[in-house]
């Protein structure tokens, strides 16, 4: 494989997460990802863009999603129940339901907040990179992120982090 193809394969799990979070459902996210990969295969990025292929692909996904929104009004379908057929067989049902509840908390946010939260908190992007990827001002990143975190914190149960507490 060429460096581009090799890198693209390695990025798939992250691209899939972003596409699904942006679209708000697994099936729509998968469609979005497939379209983005097809576009990337037909219009390979310049070699100097390879080090930042992840950002390049995030932008492709975001632009395709905006095109999709413009072309028709989409109805968000909640993310399907987690059905991990590859692993998690030993996870108990309660834990899976907790995870599903947490996932739905993010997916219940408005699209714009979901995208910012995914890029900054899940992807670890800087505010500036996130702003560039989504074509929005940095201040907008900050306000959307703040509202997203506030909404999420209000909806999911508080679990003190292990590093912040001492078990008795």
């Amino acid at each position: 494989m060429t460096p581009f193809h090799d890198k693209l394969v390695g990025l798939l799990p992250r691209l899939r997460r972003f596409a699904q979070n942006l679209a708000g459902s697994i099936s729509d996210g998968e469609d979005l990802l497939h379209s983005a990969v097809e576009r990337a295969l037909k219009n390979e990025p310049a070699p100097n863009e390879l080090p930042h292929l992840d950002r390049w692909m995030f932008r492709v996904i975001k632009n395709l999603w905006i095109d999709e929104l413009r072309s028709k009004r989409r109805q968000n379908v909640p993310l399907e129940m987690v059905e991990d057929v590859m692993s998690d067989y030993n996870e108990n049902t309660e834990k899976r339901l907790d995870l599903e509840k947490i996932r739905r908390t993010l997916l219940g946010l408005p699209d714009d907040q979901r995208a910012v939260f995914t890029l900054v908190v899940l992807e670890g992007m800087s505010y500036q990179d996130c702003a560039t990827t989504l074509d929005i001002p940095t201040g907008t990143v900050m306000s959307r992120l703040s509202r997203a975190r506030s909404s999420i914190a209000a909806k999911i149960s508080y679990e003190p982090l292990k590093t912040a507490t001492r078990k008795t």
Partner: protein
Amino acid sequence: MNNSELNDELICMYLDGEMPKDQRDAFEHRLAQDAGLQARLQRFRSSDQQLRDAFAVSDVSEFDPLVTRIKSTSFSSDGSAKTRSKFGVIALALAASMTGVMIGGIVWNSKTTVNESGVNILASDTLQNSLNQLQSGESRNGVEVVLSFRKNDKTPCRLFEVSHSKTIKSEGVSCRENGRWQLVAWFDKGSSEEAYRPASGGNSIIDEAIDRIDATGPLSLEQEKEFLLKK
């Protein structure tokens, strides 16, 4: 820094390492004295971590159809993303065999029951080993063997299912010839919500393939052991 400035945006900036040093010093000074601010910060940290855990990414699956798609494009000499014809599948298989990934016997017949995804996937040792070793009903590494049967010439065949991701599955029929499992039919089921079909309808590609090879009925587990290569 006064109270009104200690809003969620500043907490976010602090959490994300986006706060300039002088502002961070002032924030930490206030943080040490303000239990409410500490609680808010901890709550954000906790929910961030829970979301990271819930959305943790998995490794790339070799059965992911997109991996197959990308790899097949990289085989293309001109780098274009054209969809391959069935002749392209043969070319791909020859290329693979020259690099040591023997596929062989790709086209069972002239019908398009074997697609590129299936050919690539069957070339993997993971799937070859699974078909050699798993009993019907067993699964490993995303491969589940559904049942076994024999062609009318006694060649062993197996119906199996491959999970490419959490929701995407494919079904295949394969028969073992010359020590390797050769693909007879392949069907990409798509996402899980599209995959559930009534037993009476649905996967005609697989059904037709089984009919065409004049299969015997399903083998019992004991009969199946005769051709398994347990390691």
